[in-house]
């Protein structure tokens, strides 16, 4: 029917009342829009006023209208229950048309935006936001309507058809239209893996590979039967070699002594239910050699650089992502959380979360690699990096124990901390010892609420912490000081608030902020401070001690 759509992770899709009430609206939403979104729960937005309008229409005297509104509501409610849509806004919001214009004007620099509406006038107003005399760097804005059961773009309409923007039968072939037919079908067939209580009984008995394919050899993919010749080697490591294949695929070929029964069974399980997500380099098929032996697997190729070789090393980050600011870190955070939420929804744990198996590119896209070490069903994640390991997992043999979501959330917290205070671990502090004893001591030095700072490392770290939003500090503090663990959704909500706070300038957008965060007048007064003019620059600020006369910008830098 309608041509295949695919939207990038940075797209947000808004639904208008008239569109979803169209007889084919719910169907097109579920069959075409949803599969085109990598992460519907984040990207698909229902504005609260639209649901209010639907409610009114349901009570309508016109039976057709009431039925359409009921069908629409039913579909949207189902999506909401499955967490495939976000309902945003509240009763204070203005009516939908104004709201969409506000939202699109506000977010057009941050996201690619899509509006689904059959309202010609609204479409024209929204499309007008694509160009603005005063604003540059506007991202993509698309507006779609339904005509004869097809999804069509008002924009193509305006360009190619008549002036009055009457819907016509031009089918949409947009720039983002890249998903292949088969990829989409597979996505919809993926099932969550079974959860296991115990580690699998499959032993890790070695299976010696008789014939390890090398350059020039032909390999066959087990499920698809596709044959490839190995030409371009991408790398080699302790476990095997990596080879470039067509269509952005990579073949991992194990060394002769690195295959065993457990690994084979795990790869068979993983490839039998091949997770498809733009950020996850999941093993999607087994690789066989000429003799029919399983010698490895294929996965999508990652791009970008390891976090360890970019964000986590300040001097490298400045070189490889020179234009980045804090909002880029927040975007990386969101993209990462979305991918991990997707894995968790399929009962998969990463297990060995660290800065070497997460890649990031300049556009804040994220790739999760080394997925064959993930915990799936009874197959544990057998490796770990000490500084990311939850305290309850330290000192035990990881291959003999299944991890929990809670331990994963701890590792994730460490990683996110190192994202926002680039590369700095949460337990480094003044007066500490070596890395191992700091991990043991679990002393978290950053201030929060009534807890003062106690040994924040010298350097840019205090300011970087200070300019986090409150909710971020709250999550980090309770994780690292009180041993609490917060669900992915809490971190995602935090990241969205952070995004918003940066947009409005509530916190510094510098990766290494020059100043610590200043209190507002209300905050300063509420905490017993005075609101006075700075003796240095005259700007008003909150003086918290009787001897304070200079604002943060005029106080000489902390030594």
């Amino acid at each position, binding site marked *: 029917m309608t041509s295949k759509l695919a939207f990038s992770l940075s797209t947000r899709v808004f639904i208008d009342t008239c569109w979803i009430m169209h007889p084919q609206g719910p169907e097109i939403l579920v069959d075409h829009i949803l599969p085109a979104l990598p992460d519907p729960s984040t990207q698909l937005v229902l504005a609260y006023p639209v649901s209010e309008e639907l409610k009114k229409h349901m009570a309508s005297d016109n039976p057709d209208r009431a039925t359409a509104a009921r069908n629409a509501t039913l579909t949207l409610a189902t999506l909401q229950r499955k967490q495939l849509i976000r309902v945003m806004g509240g009763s204070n919001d203005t009516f939908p048309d104004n709201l969409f214009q506000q939202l699109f004007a506000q977010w057009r620099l941050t996201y690619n935006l899509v509006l689904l509406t059959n309202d010609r006038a609204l479409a024209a107003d929204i499309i007008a936001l694509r160009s603005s005399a005063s604003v540059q760097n506007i991202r993509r804005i698309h507006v779609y309507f339904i005509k004869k059961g097809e999804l069509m773009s008002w924009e193509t309409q305006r360009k190619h058809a008549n002036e009055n923007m009457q819907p016509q039968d031009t089918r949409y072939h947009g720039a983002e239209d890249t998903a292949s037919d088969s990829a989409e079908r597979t996505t919809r067939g993926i099932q969550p893996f079974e959860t296991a209580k115990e580690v699998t009984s499959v032993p890790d008995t070695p299976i010696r590979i008789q014939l390890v394919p090398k350059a020039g050899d032909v390999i066959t993919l087990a499920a698809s039967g596709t044959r490839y010749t190995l030409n371009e080697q991408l790398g080699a490591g302790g476990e095997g070699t990596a080879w470039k294949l067509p269509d952005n695929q990579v073949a991992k070929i194990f060394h002769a002594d690195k295959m065993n029964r457990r690994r084979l069974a795990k790869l068979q399980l993983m490839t039998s239910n091949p997770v498809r997500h733009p950020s996850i380099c999941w093993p999607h098929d087994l690789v066989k050699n000429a003799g029919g032996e399983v010698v490895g697997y294929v996965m999508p190729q990652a791009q970008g650089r390891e976090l*360890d*070789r970019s964000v*986590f*090393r*300040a*001097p*490298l980050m400045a070189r490889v992502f020179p234009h980045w600011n804090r909002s880029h870190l927040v975007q990386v955070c969101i993209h990462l959380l979305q991918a991990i939420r997707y894995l968790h929804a399929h009962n998969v744990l990463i297990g060995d979360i*660290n*800065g*070497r198996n997460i890649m990031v590119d300049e556009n804040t896209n994220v790739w999760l690699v080394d997925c064959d070490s993930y915990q799936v069903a009874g197959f544990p994640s057998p490796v770990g*990096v*000490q*500084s*990311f390991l939850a305290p309850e997992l330290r000192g035990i043999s990881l291959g003999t124990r299944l991890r929990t979501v809670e331990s994963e959330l701890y590792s994730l917290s460490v990683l996110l901390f*190192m994202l926002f*205070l*680039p*590369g*700095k*671990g949460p337990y*480094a*502090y*003044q*007066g*500490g*010892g*070596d*890395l*191992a004893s*700091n*991990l043991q001591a679990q002393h978290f*030095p950053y201030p929060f609420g009534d807890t003062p700072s106690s*040994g*924040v*490392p*010298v*350097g*840019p*770290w205090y300011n970087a912490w200070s300019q986090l939003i409150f909710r971020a500090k709250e999550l980090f503090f309770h994780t690292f000081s009180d041993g609490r663990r917060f669900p992915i959704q809490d971190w995602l909500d935090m990241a969205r608030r952070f995004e918003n706070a940066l947009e409005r300038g509530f916190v510094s957008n510098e990766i*290494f902020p020059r100043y610590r965060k200043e209190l507002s007048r209300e905050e300063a007064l509420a905490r017993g401070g005075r609101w006075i003019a700075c003796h240095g620059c005259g700007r008003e600020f909150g003086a918290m001690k009787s001897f304070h006369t200079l604002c943060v910008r005029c106080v000489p830098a902390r030594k």
Partner: protein
Amino acid sequence: MTDLALTHDDFVSNPAARVPVILCLDVSSSMSGPPIDELQQGLMQFIREVLADELAASAVELSVVTFGERVQQDIPFGTLNESMTLALRASGCTPMGEGVSLSLRLLEERKSTYQRMGIDYYQPWLVIMTDGAPTDSIQEAAARCRELAASRKLAVFPIGIGPGANLQTLAEFSPNRPPLRLQGLQFSKFFQWLSASMSRVSASTPGTTVPLDVAAITGWAQL
């Protein structure tokens, strides 16, 4: 003054957990000629190889102490850079005890700097290289080395150069790891191994145990 401030900033804003390594080198008169030349070349090669690995380059902090006519710190602790130079000269006797004592003191100072600044660091490495036997008392220094190594606060690598090196004395510095004797003057291979090990340590964000590829050494050294 400005330069100092800059250095300080780089030091504290580099988030990498540091791998302090101190080379305690014999530059007594018996090392003169080819041995000292090759030692020096090996060292420069080590610096180049660490710099070539971007992870190791931001994590490894090197210091060099020599013992011979004098006992001195030739390179103060810090990350490496391309412009580093070192001119080793061989003369005098072999005050190994004093050399190791100075190395341990400098390591302690460096560790307390890390602690004062809140910088994570790994267990420090001490490499002792000699072609002979000490001409001063090593008892105190050796006891301190053993103590630190036993409590996993120090990794000691005693290396004998050529047939004249007294491995028994060297063994006193290291309770866990027996001294190695370089075959001929294979400094190059040793420093290759050392830089590879540094890369492995600095890339493995873990805390405690780093698998050292000791198997790689046995090929060119003899016990």
